[in-house]
């Protein structure tokens, strides 16, 4: 019995070996993630004068945060950003994936090109679109905004009405191809048999899509929407580089608010409380992602 159990399933009787393998990585992650988090939580419960830790404050910093109009404004901006960007990216991405799945030619060129925006540095995205939409001479700002009189004599990033929309469209430009390719990869890995059966039964393409593709692809769709929600919610770099949250507070997302509270206003009480709130939210997001990948997608 003993010999048998040793040989099957490499996992049995491994003793301390796996823990030795994991220790360096887990200790590092504790140092670079858990310790900073606990430190932030500790600071958020104290009165802060700049970087000096004052008296125990209980939840005073949190109470101040929750009555801070600017905080709620930034939450609204983030919510608006997500509410427009993510459905657009998903809808267009799904259409694109269905198109790609129709035996498109030159795929070996088209697919890598579509990967470019999602791997691109935020700084490159910012430079690209600063150039495309620069003042009145940028390629797009001249040919679209100026010529049709939508916006004249002003950069779109300085326009209170249009700056957020511009940032959203840039995000759509950057992330729709990723959604498209991820869903395309999902479509490619679907089992063939149900489709053969559907074809034999004479199902129309629309019926096949609604009755087969959608339910089969649903778990993957949930994963991708969650990922996009998470990423769109924490977007910082592109906004910081293109508008810095302005004009006024027109594009001040939650990330920008957090940044400014620390590095512009040095209000560390509010900032650490915000960071903890964001952290808790992201932990819940991560947990949702984990559960969907594990139970619905059965990836592990």
């Amino acid at each position, binding site marked *: 019995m003993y010999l048998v159990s040793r040989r099957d399933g490499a996992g049995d009787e491994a003793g301390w070996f796996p823990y030795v393998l994991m220790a360096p990585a887990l200790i590092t992650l504790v140092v670079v993630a858990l310790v900073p988090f606990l430190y932030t939580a500790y600071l958020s419960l104290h009165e802060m004068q700049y970087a000096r830790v004052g008296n125990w404050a209980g939840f005073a910093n949190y109470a101040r945060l929750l009555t801070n109009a600017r905080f709620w404004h930034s939450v609204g901006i983030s919510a608006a950003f997500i509410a427009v960007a993510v459905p657009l990216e998903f809808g267009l991405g799904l259409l694109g994936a269905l*198109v790609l799945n129709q035996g498109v030619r030159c795929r070996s060129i088209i697919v890598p090109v579509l990967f470019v925006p999602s791997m691109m*540095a935020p700084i490159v995205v910012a430079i*690209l679109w600063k150039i495309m939409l620069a003042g009145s001479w940028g390629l797009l700002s001249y040919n679209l905004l100026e010529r049709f009189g939508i916006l004249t004599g002003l950069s779109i990033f300085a326009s209170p009405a249009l700056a957020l929309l511009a940032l959203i469209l840039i995000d759509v430009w950057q992330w729709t191809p990723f959604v498209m390719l991820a869903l395309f990869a999902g479509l490619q890995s679907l089992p063939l048999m149900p489709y053969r059966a559907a074809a034999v039964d004479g199902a129309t393409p629309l019926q096949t899509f609604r009755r087969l593709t959608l339910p089969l692809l649903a778990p993957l769709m949930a994963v991708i929407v969650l990922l996009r929600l998470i990423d769109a919610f924490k977007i910082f770099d592109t906004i910081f580089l293109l508008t810095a949250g302005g004009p006024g507070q027109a594009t001040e997302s939650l990330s920008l608010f957090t940044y400014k509270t620390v590095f512009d206003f040095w209000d560390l009480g509010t900032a650490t409380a915000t*960071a903890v709130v964001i952290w808790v939210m992201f932990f819940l997001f991560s947990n949702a992602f984990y559960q969907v990948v594990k139970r619905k997608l059965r990836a592990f």
Partner: protein
Amino acid sequence: MPMSVRERAARRRQLLFTLLAAAGALAVVFPVLWMALMMFKPEAVMFARPPVWRFPPTLEHFDYVIEHGFVWNLLASLFVAVASTVLVVVVGTPAAYAFARFPIRRRDDLLLFVLATRMAPPVALVIPFYLIYARVGLLDTYVGLVVAYLSFNLSFYVWVLWSFCRELPVELEEAARADGYPRAHVLVRVVLPLLRPGIIATAVLCFIFAWNEFLYAFLLGGKTIETLPVAVPKLITSQGVKWGELSIVGIVALMPVLVVVFLLQRHIVRGLTMGAVKG
């Protein structure tokens, strides 16, 4: 043999879909091409209205970029990205393997911890990093920046490489074990060679993430360590924005991405979906 009507319709449909997909790819490429053109555009026609496509090309922007020491920024970027990637591979590979192969106590909790570390927004993490670094003197140091990059890259690496490890066949390891080799030996001689494609793909993605990173470099690298992304504001001068130079930096920053996209395309989907899609 003449084509049947159905065949011709199928051909036409395929052509239509190819054109649609190509249009999407063009929407991606177009701004990049326009930026590439700006690298050679003389100041005289830079602000022409309507924007011009044809002009006598100039290399003056390249002179400026070289004279102002952007090569050093490039080297700083390369160094930080390579150092953090090497560290991640060394520390992360055994952990990813352990998660895949052995029954670990509280495995779900540990994995969730790794994932949550990856998902955490940098803007929340950079605050404690900044305060702690200011206190222990790690601000403006390479060590500080490389360690900070571990927070998102190590968790990413462990999580994604774990998905590669799950696909390894266990039989070879069992055979080596049955021959009496110790577990550490099996890991180095049997597992690592099999895992090499996964390690390379995941490590390259880590390199790109470090290469692209802006916020940590901006705040923790400060004045002394200017990676390429952080050097960009130098081009927004009191005399106005240096558009040609900005484009050069943009294109250089884009280079590794262009290489990776063509070499690794299958693995990018896996990486960006955190291993949820095999690609």
